[in-house]
């Protein structure tokens, strides 16, 4: 909302109370502000008023008939009356009409107890009805395994239809039929196939659309709510977990709350069962001589771990330990883990899953502008007038950030430039490229050259910030020289995008005043990720958008606490802050606080740890919630490295492939069973709260670290997660002290100045050099391991709700390629290259670009063997998302 000054205020009277509201406010909202609740069904603040339910009629003086308060805007001196008898009469009559055809099945309706119609009926109508005719009955329509519809209960308010169109941009629902026979239907005869955001379920004021996942499991008054944060991506959505006794019943979110403003995606809305999967590890496990796990008590397990750790520490020193932690942990746990590794075990070998990509976003931000967070917020996305999305189908990877982009484009008419491999084709789920004003179709391995093309257009078309050349002549000349070494012909040939399209996009972006760049996994998790992000920052500086309000470069976090992992120092190169590991003052301060000497050895990151493990330098590893054996390809020889360890401790929810190699497995809690904080992709620190008791004997990770330190005689004792947070605050002053909006750091002037003077030269020799990876003739397809909207990592594949939407992977192909290969959806396909061959199912999709095949990473257990591992020399990020393959159709009989 734009800030309003006094001139824009309108004074009106509602039921005798006078109030001033901004011009353009609806009467129903103005009434809400003075505490007058006007009953309504069809009105919703997120949607355009439709005024179809006629429930919100009020009397407005000087207007002839009763007016709908949801569609009438306030006017100066307006006198609104909502509590006069004839307004009451009108509401009663509307309710009588609605109840005429509404079935009286409240006892079996899941909405019963929190239903707007029920509440208003109690408030307004007598208990008898004058309707003695027959009620209208619709034939039962089966929607999907997740969404239950009962159209007899529908009040035709069209909220679901409008939500699906206006907010989600999916348009899966539509009214069909006329008059009383109007019912909400999805298109086509098969089951509902949409984004499954659950928005229709949440927004339905009655029980017409309910969740089938929790159908009949509960009554609303039994539910206890816990407000917490979702774990499925970096957006950090506020979710309300509803439980009955200790059973998870449903998840919803409240409008006006959290960064998501009540909107959720399929993962948030239907993915909550992953935490209570029956495969959860219930007890500590200790590996026996015969290689099998035996159930143990916490005392036995912790004492064994402590004893082994002590032994290795005495024999080989702290540097023999490696620690790896998942970014799904809370900030408190990440902080405590690195404190345990550095302080108790004395090792600088600490890393987290932020290494898989997010550091590629953070390191360039730190070196160019001195911030580790976005310099913009979700609100800035909504208010932006130009957005550049690179390497992300944002609606799938970060759906709620995607909603902000949709809002900016649909309501704010922002310019949207997308640099994406996906084609703008309509499908059952929304596709951000369809909303783009300028779309650059770039193959997943060509983002680098496309970014160079974009910068070249800026230079060639004279779109450079006029003051830059005098402010930073060396920078300008050096970049220009580096860019000029690549010719347009080469860029056009490799990227497949014409010079005109580049310059149109560059023009569109430079013409804006609030321009943002959003960078996704396509860039961050592919080779040269950090270089591309640095180049994009150069692009921002060249266009003069760098450091301007509402502008900035925003790397999207894939895991919910990637940002927190970096800020908590759970990565090799950082201490909490994040402060560079070698920073003397911080080391002093931490030593004093932790009462230990910090290890002096050079830090080593994820891949270095595995390398050193194989070389025998790392003797023991402590892996918390990560599964490198499964998430990295075989060529990385992770399994061999882990097998060569003397001692491996895994702290896990499930007995993963990595955990199976462990000597001791400690059962940890999932996000619904613990307290703490998550830091989302935009740097907002938000509280996570315990909803249910820990499953089995599992304990929150921080409790395990704490207990282990006590057994090892170097106690880090805390009563609750909040105590750890207090310690974090003493290390990082003001951490997490935020209001309703994330703090917005500004680029540090001295760092930017330093970068423009000389910092840019670092890596300049290579980062603009365009290399080209030519496909071999026998492996013509670029196979990309991509994220799906319906899953997040491997964790969500334990969720029964999400599995009902997507239960397996399929290789996704463009129709033209499929036609060439004679493949149709559902056919078996053999995917092969030098590393092996895998047979899987094909799915033909219009939005997949030609010569590219995509496979969801969540189901890549088998196909992972085809990928190779590359390690970034600069940021040490392991890349394994792209490979070259050939595809062949397999006859059913051959399988």
């Amino acid at each position, binding site marked *: 909302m734009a800030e309003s000054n006094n001139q824009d205020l309108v004074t009106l009277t509602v039921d005798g109370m006078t109030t001033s509201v901004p011009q353009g406010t609806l009467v129903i909202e103005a009434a809400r502000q003075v505490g007058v609740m006007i009953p309504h069904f069809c009105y919703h603040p997120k949607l355009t008023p439709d*005024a179809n339910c*006629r429930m919100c*009629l009020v009397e407005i003086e000087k207007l002839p008939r009763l007016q*709908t308060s949801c569609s009438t805007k306030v006017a100066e001196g307006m006198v609104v009356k909502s509590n006069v008898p004839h307004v009451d009469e009108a509401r009663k*009559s*509307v309710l009588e009409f609605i109840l005429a055809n509404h079935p009286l099945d409240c006892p079996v309706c899941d909405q019963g107890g929190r239903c707007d119609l029920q509440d208003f009926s109690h408030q307004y109508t007598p208990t008898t009805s004058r309707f003695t*005719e027959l009620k209208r*009955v619709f034939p039962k329509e089966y929607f999907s395994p997740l969404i239950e519809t009962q159209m007899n209960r529908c009040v035709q308010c069209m909220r679901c239809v409008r939500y699906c169109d206006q907010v989600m941009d999916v348009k899966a629902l539509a009214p069909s039929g*006329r008059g009383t026979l109007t019912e909400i239907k999805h298109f086509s005869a098969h089951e509902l196939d949409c984004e499954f955001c659950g928005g229709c379920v949440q927004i339905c004021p009655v029980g017409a659309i309910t969740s089938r996942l929790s159908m009949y499991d509960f009554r609303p008054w039994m539910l206890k709510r816990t407000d917490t944060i979702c774990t499925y991506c970096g957006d950090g959505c506020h979710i309300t977990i509803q439980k009955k006794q200790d059973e998870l019943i449903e998840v919803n979110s409240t409008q006006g709350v959290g960064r998501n403003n009540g909107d959720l995606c399929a993962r948030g809305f239907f993915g909550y069962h992953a935490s209570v999967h029956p495969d959860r590890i219930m007890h500590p496990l200790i590996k026996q001589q015969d290689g099998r796990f035996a159930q143990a008590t916490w005392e036995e397990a912790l004492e064994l771990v402590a004893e082994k750790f002590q032994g290795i520490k005495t024999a080989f020193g702290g540097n023999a330990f490696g620690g790896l932690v998942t970014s799904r942990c809370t900030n408190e746990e990440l902080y405590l883990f690195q404190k345990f590794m550095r302080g108790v075990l004395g090792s600088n070998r600490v890393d987290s899953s932020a290494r898989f990509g997010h550091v590629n976003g953070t390191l360039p931000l730190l070196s160019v502008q001195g911030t580790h967070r976005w310099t913009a917020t979700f609100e800035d996305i909504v208010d932006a007038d130009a957005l550049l999305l690179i390497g992300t189908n944002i609606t799938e990877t970060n759906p709620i950030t995607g909603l902000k982009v949709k809002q900016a484009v649909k309501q704010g008419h922002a310019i949207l430039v997308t640099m994406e491999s996906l084609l703008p084709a309509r499908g059952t789920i929304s596709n951000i490229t369809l909303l783009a004003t300028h779309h650059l179709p770039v193959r997943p391995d060509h983002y680098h050259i496309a970014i160079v093309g974009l910068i070249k257009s800026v230079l060639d078309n004279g779109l450079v910030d006029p003051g830059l050349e005098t402010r930073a002549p060396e920078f300008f000349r050096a970049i220009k020289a580096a860019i000029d070494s690549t010719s347009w012909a080469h860029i056009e040939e490799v990227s497949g995008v014409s010079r005109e399209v580049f310059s149109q996009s560059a023009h569109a972006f430079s013409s804006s005043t609030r321009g943002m760049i959003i960078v996704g996994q396509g860039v961050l998790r592919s080779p040269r990720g950090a270089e591309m992000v640095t180049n994009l920052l150069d692009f921002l500086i060249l266009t003069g958008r760098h450091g301007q309000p509402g502008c900035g470069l925003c790397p999207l976090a894939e895991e919910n606490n990637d940002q927190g992992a970096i800020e908590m120092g759970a990565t090799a190169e950082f201490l909490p802050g994040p402060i560079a590991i070698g920073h003397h003052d911080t080391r002093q301060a931490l030593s004093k606080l932790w009462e230990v000497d910090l290890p002096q050895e050079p830090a080593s990151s994820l891949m270095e740890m595995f390398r050193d493990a194989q070389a025998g330098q790392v003797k023991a590893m402590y892996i918390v919630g990560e599964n490198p054996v499964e998430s990295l390809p075989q060529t990385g020889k992770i399994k061999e490295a882990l097998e060569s360890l003397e001692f491996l401790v895994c702290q896990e929810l499930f007995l993963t492939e990595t955990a199976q190699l462990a000597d001791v497995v400690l059962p940890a809690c999932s996000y619904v069973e613990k307290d703490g904080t998550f830091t989302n992709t935009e740097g907002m620190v938000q509280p996570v709260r315990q909803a249910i008791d820990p499953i089995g004997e599992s304990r929150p990770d921080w409790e395990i670290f704490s207990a282990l330190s006590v057994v090892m005689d170097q106690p880090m004792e805390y009563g609750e997660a909040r105590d750890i947070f207090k310690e974090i605050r003493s290390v990082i002053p003001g951490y997490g002290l935020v209001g309703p909006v994330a703090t917005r750091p500004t680029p540090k002037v001295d760092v930017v100045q330093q970068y423009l003077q000389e910092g840019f030269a670092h890596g300049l020799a290579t980062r603009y050099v365009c290399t080209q990876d030519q496909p071999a003739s026998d492996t013509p397809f670029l196979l990309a391991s991509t994220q799906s909207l319906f899953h997040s990592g491997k964790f969500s594949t334990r969720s029964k709700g999400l599995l009902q939407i997507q239960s397996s992977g399929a290789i996704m192909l463009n129709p033209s390629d499929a036609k060439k290969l004679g493949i149709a959806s559902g056919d078996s396909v053999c995917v092969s290259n030098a590393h092996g061959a895998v047979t899987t199912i094909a799915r033909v999709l219009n939005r997949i670009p030609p010569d590219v095949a995509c496979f969801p990473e969540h189901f890549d257990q088998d196909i992972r063997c085809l990928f190779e591992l590359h390690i970034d020399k600069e940021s040490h990020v392991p890349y394994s998302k792209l490979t070259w393959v050939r595809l062949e159709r397999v006859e059913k009989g051959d399988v």
Partner: protein
Amino acid sequence: MPTHEKILLKNMDQPGYTGSLKDYEAVGGYQALRRVMKELAPADLIDIVKQSGLRGRGGAGFPTGVKWSFIPKDYTGPKYLCCNADESEPGTFKDRQLMERDPHQVLEGIAIACQAIGAETAYIYIRGEFRLGAKILEHAIDEARQARYLGENVLSSGVPIQVYVHAGAGAYICGEETALLESLEGKRGMPRVKPPFPATHGLYQKPTVVNNVETLANLPHIVTRGADWFASIGSPPKSTGTRIFCLSGHVKQPGNYEVPMGITFRELIYEHAGGMRGEKPLKAFIPGGASASFLTEAHLDVKLDFESVAQAGSMLGSGGVTVMEEGTSMVWAALRLMEFFYHESCGKCTPCREGSSWLVQVLQRIVDRRGRMEDLQVLADLCQNIVGRTVCAFGDAEIAPIVGTLQYWRNEYEDLIRESTAISTTSKELPVLALNS
């Protein structure tokens, strides 16, 4: 029988008049458009129409010139004119004749209106069932385009006027102007919430004027013969000009009659339409399409102008006069009309959607002799609860037959109910609505 000069039906009454461009030009067609393009500024044109006192012929009777003047003057983007040819009101069939028999008269009117409001594009939203009308109009548009009366450069003035015919898909509600615009945009034909009005946020949210076919057909004559001439016809100052009344029902000669406003119903029914069929006494008549309330024999001397009919408790509406003779069951008549409204209720807003189905079921029960005395109160209450609480005027229209019949022929309802109580005292309803038929 007094004779009146016909204006709109004059051309087609000539023997051998085919409605082709040649015929129309022969009777002086498109001279008004020439004058408009050459001599008249849009503001003057609007003034002429304002002075003529022309009021909308579609139903509401809003002064046309005033409607045009609501279009924002300084708006530079596209503006649209929509010709409402979705003539679906039961008992109304005047536009159909105008379009099928003299299409160029309508097109000339459209071109003049476009020039007045500065629209470069006009859409004729024609009722889906009028296949012939649509074909004739399309042919006429081709003719006019070739003769440069329409198209890129109208009469070499540099002004483009493009006219397109868009056929509806069979919904009565699309005759409501905002529903028409929704349908034209390709959405579900459902009325919009007003304000904002189409004059500022119409088709594709651009300023738009929606005029009826008959209204537009009057324009060439007003331009040619002057506002004063038009204002002198009928019963000035409020209701000027002639109107085409569509007579149907129990009259000897049903059909379209163009008469000056201000004659009485008695003249219209007994002199123009030849009186009652079978010389039975008149029992009731609907003065202006199904949306207008019934009037009785006592109202035969009411003048046919907007104000007089409104004073009598009904409305002149679309000019469809349906006459019923003595012996007609008024409850049945109300049911028949109510069934139409039930079928055509778009379902957007609650009172109309649920009310129409409820009312039709109660009426059906009474007609089936399964009614109760309390039902009359229910009917009256429901009508009371629908009127004025709906999105569009459909809600006010759908209750007209029931309110009218309850007012004048309550005894007929009571008689039917008394018959039913004699048969059974308890109600064992059978399904009235076939489930999802």
